[in-house]
């Protein structure tokens, strides 16, 4: 049992993160063409709205919640000292968790029932959706059945995650958790593990740069004035579109 626990909560997280980092970089550099969100809106636009919007918005909120609890556990706990604030966090988490669930189910329904969408569905898409579904169901279950996660996450899970970051894994608290929560943790690392192999990779290339770049982009093969300078070495500047 302990061996399994050690594997799931010590070895697997490291494997997942390493695979994520190496895999994403490799895919981005070597197979840039495959890095795409593979939107299917072009084939079906109406039903998609009711799936993709709740799914993504919910996911963003829920992810940020987890992330803040992980990064700033102390602040999180201080915030929770007033019960009503704790309640707000819990309710928000549940509501957006359910939003993700509704979105995901409607996306899966669309994927299975629309012939055009089926035509662009791969086995990996199904696998990803099932994995996400399991994860979201577990998440909602935890929110309902294992109260005040907004407090016990920063209190006991954050230290565990930080211990992983610091390469000194402390697993006592995790080993003692109920199996539902354990599954949720394993699910989370499985998703991290899967990113480089699936369409999930698109979140890594979220185009935030757009906000700061100018509208128009012109690319010169070379620095256009340098072309005529015979004294410049020919390999001085790399072409930008290469």
């Amino acid at each position, binding site marked *: 049992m302990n061996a399994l626990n050690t594997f799931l909560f010590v070895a697997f997280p490291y494997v997942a993160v390493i695979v994520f980092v190496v895999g994403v970089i490799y895919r981005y550099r070597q197979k840039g063409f495959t890095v795409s969100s593979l939107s299917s809106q072009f084939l079906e636009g109406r039903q998609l709205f009711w799936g993709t919007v709740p799914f993504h918005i919910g996911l963003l909120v829920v992810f940020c919640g987890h992330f803040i609890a992980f990064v700033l556990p102390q602040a999180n706990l201080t915030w929770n000292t007033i019960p009503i604030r704790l309640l707000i966090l819990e309710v928000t988490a549940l509501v957006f968790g359910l939003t993700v669930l509704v979105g995901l189910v409607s996306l899966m329904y669309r994927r299975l029932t629309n012939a055009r969408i089926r035509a662009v569905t791969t086995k990996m898409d199904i696998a990803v959706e099932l994995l996400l579904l399991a994860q979201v169901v577990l998440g909602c279950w935890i929110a309902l059945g294992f109260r005040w996660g907004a407090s016990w996450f920063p209190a006991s899970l954050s230290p565990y995650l930080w211990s992983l970051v610091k390469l000194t894994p402390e697993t006592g608290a995790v080993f003692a958790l109920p199996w539902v929560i354990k599954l949720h943790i394993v699910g989370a690392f499985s998703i991290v593990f899967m990113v480089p192999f699936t369409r999930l990779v698109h979140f890594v290339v979220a185009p935030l740069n757009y*906000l700061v770049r100018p509208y128009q982009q012109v690319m010169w093969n070379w620095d256009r004035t340098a072309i005529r300078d015979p004294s410049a070495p020919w390999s001085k500047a790399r072409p930008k579109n290469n």
Partner: protein
Amino acid sequence: MDVRSQISMVFHLDKCIGCHTCSIACKNIWTDRKGAEYMWWNNVETKPGTGYPGKWEDQRIYKGGWEKKGDGIDLKGAGKPQSLTNIFHNPHMPVIDDYYEPFTYKYLDLIESPAGDDQPTARPISMITGEPMDIKMGPNWDDDLSGTPDYARKDPNLEKLSPAEQEAMFQMERMAFFYLPRICNHCLNPACVASCPSGAIYKRGEDGVVLINQSVCRAWRMCVTACPYKKSYYNWNTGKSEKCILCYPRIEAGHAPACMHSCVGRIRYLGVLLYDADRIEDVASADEAEVVSRQMDMILDPFDPPVIEAAKQNGIADSTIDAAQYSPTYKFVKRWNLALPLHPEFRTLPMLFYVPPLLPVMASVTKADNTAQSAGMNPIAKHWPDSWLYDTSTAALFGTIDEARFPLQYMANLFSAGDTAKVGDRLKKLMAVRLHRRRVTVGDVAEDTVSEALATTGLTPQTADDIYYLTSLAQFDDRFVIPAAHREQALEMMEFAGDVKGNTGFGFKNATAERGS
């Protein structure tokens, strides 16, 4: 002055016969692939008509192009911040049914069906799902259907016409139409580039071709919305957007693009224009009435010494400047003022120009008393109880072009943001050239008429002959003046030669010859 060079195009609409050879040439080379079957980087539309995708010109539906916002301009349906806020679901995104569902036929059924009482048929099947389907649309679905209520009358350009004008246009015996071949305009102020959140779309500095980097596109699909000409297409299979590449591999090798090379009517011209890039933003944000003339103004004279000097300083090759001087597009667009961009009010500053068609306009309409003629007709003869007289003699039309059977306003809505004077000028010039040539070849037009026509349009007999030459007699090399691409540079647009220097040859790009140990 920031001089740049742009490969630009002119389509002479009087010469287009609507044969779609151009579309097929393009399809065979570039879009005959899964996910791209529905794309027609080059398509030919019948005007008046709804086009492809249906009613693409109506930006209330598609939200493409730029619009004035405050002092400047901004993208209508994409841009900052909509390109990010609508990233999960883009409410202005056309779907495949706005174009058409690509189809083929089950031809094998014709051969393999078991013997029976009925003829076997080849049923249409969808190229997306492979299931049998009913065909509802095609890429040129309204081809030649110019009088029909479902298509011609839904043309968005009819809107600014009075009901009487519209009615007149669709009277059976007045009806006329023309063809409008379209490719990507390789705009100076491209909306597709501006809308792309990942920055995958760019304009090539050297020749102005607008391209989508397939390795950087992430299927955020904002360009599909933003391009008002709907010339950026989403490949549903690869999850990447694609668009006309102006056959840049051919251009770099000195060949004309496939659509132009194959054009049966020889309507297409390609050449370099030099322009002042400092003025792009200014011109694009000008008042609607001024956009066209200011776009013309920013095109520079390639013979002007200061322009040449500035061009050289910007690294524009001598061969390119040469090409700009011989450019047929410079002649049509700037020197003769004969061509206009399509829908300049979208403010993308298109670099594909059209010589407006004279043929559908030809014939002026006047009221005449037809009663005597009608009375003399056999009662079973079909006749229309109207009193129009169609005068198809060119000379008569010259003075009355405003009363042409095809309302000038319609042409103006297409080519000059509604300004009839601009289209009228150009049509009159075309007419004057005709009169002049008629006098030269047939001789039945009085000299006064001709010289008056030439004088009012500001042409000399010499210019008229030049226009005639480039319109009717031009050879391949007159129509396509392609600057030398400097292969040594062009190659490196695709691949950085430094990366493979010292490697083993024969295609083993990454394997360096290393000594074993």
